[in-house]
């Protein structure tokens, strides 16, 4: 199994939907180098796509003058990803549980649920500029 010492990769992405695919492609390569198995890599892919999609759509509101920053820090068996936007920030606790009966048939609102489902650790903080930073951690 491939292993590496700690490695950091930083992506600066424009606020458009195509950035989701770009981030996911980078994540796939880094996950493999980190020695994550297929299930863990799938979880990272699911969660990262949701986080970058949220940053582009809800954070930066597709304003292409704003960027989404993705920082991958990998070490053997652990991958940590921070996704930051330049939006107005938000409270993840304000998002209702999408599995509650009244929300099951809603057409949106499952992204954070997927992040929490597929990652070992998920947390949100405000950036110094007031945007949102999501931290995702996956162990192999």
């Amino acid at each position: 199994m491939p292993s590496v010492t700690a490695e950091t990769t930083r992506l600066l992405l424009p606020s458009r939907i195509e950035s989701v695919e770009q981030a996911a492609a980078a994540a796939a390569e880094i996950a493999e180098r980190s020695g994550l198995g297929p299930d863990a890599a799938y979880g990272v892919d699911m969660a990262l796509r949701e986080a970058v999609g949220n940053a582009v759509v809800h954070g930066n509101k597709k304003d292409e003058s704003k960027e989404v920053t993705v920082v991958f820090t990998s070490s053997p068996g652990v991958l940590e990803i921070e996704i930051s936007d330049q939006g107005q920030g938000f409270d993840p606790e304000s998002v209702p549980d999408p599995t509650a009966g009244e929300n099951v048939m809603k057409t949106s609102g499952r992204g954070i649920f997927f992040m929490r489902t597929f990652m070992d650790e998920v947390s949100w903080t405000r950036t110094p500029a007031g945007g949102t930073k999501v931290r995702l951690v996956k162990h192999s």
Partner: protein
Amino acid sequence: MAELNMKERQAGDVTVLDMDGKITIGDGSVALRSAIKRLLEEGKKKVLLNLAGVGYIDSSGIGELVSSYTSINNAGGQLKLLRLTQKLQDLLTITKLLTVFDVYDSEADALTSYK
């Protein structure tokens, strides 16, 4: 290359969409939405989505499946799902949507169920 390719065929009064690719935020979700809108405009209200070739779906895609189901239901039709991958079945299970959708492994069984 499009994220999601669809082939449409008619089995009696049921329209089958054989889907191949990803249903994700952006092109994939838009393609599904456009296809369902067009089918409803054409009066095709019995729709079977063959998802065997859909290897990846995100929350946007799940939302689009829900939206498709609701649109077709509201028009008096029926949307059913065929041949889910294990990953999609797992996603529908954790989102509590597996019991909402009528899901089949056999196309013959699915087609019979519309009668």
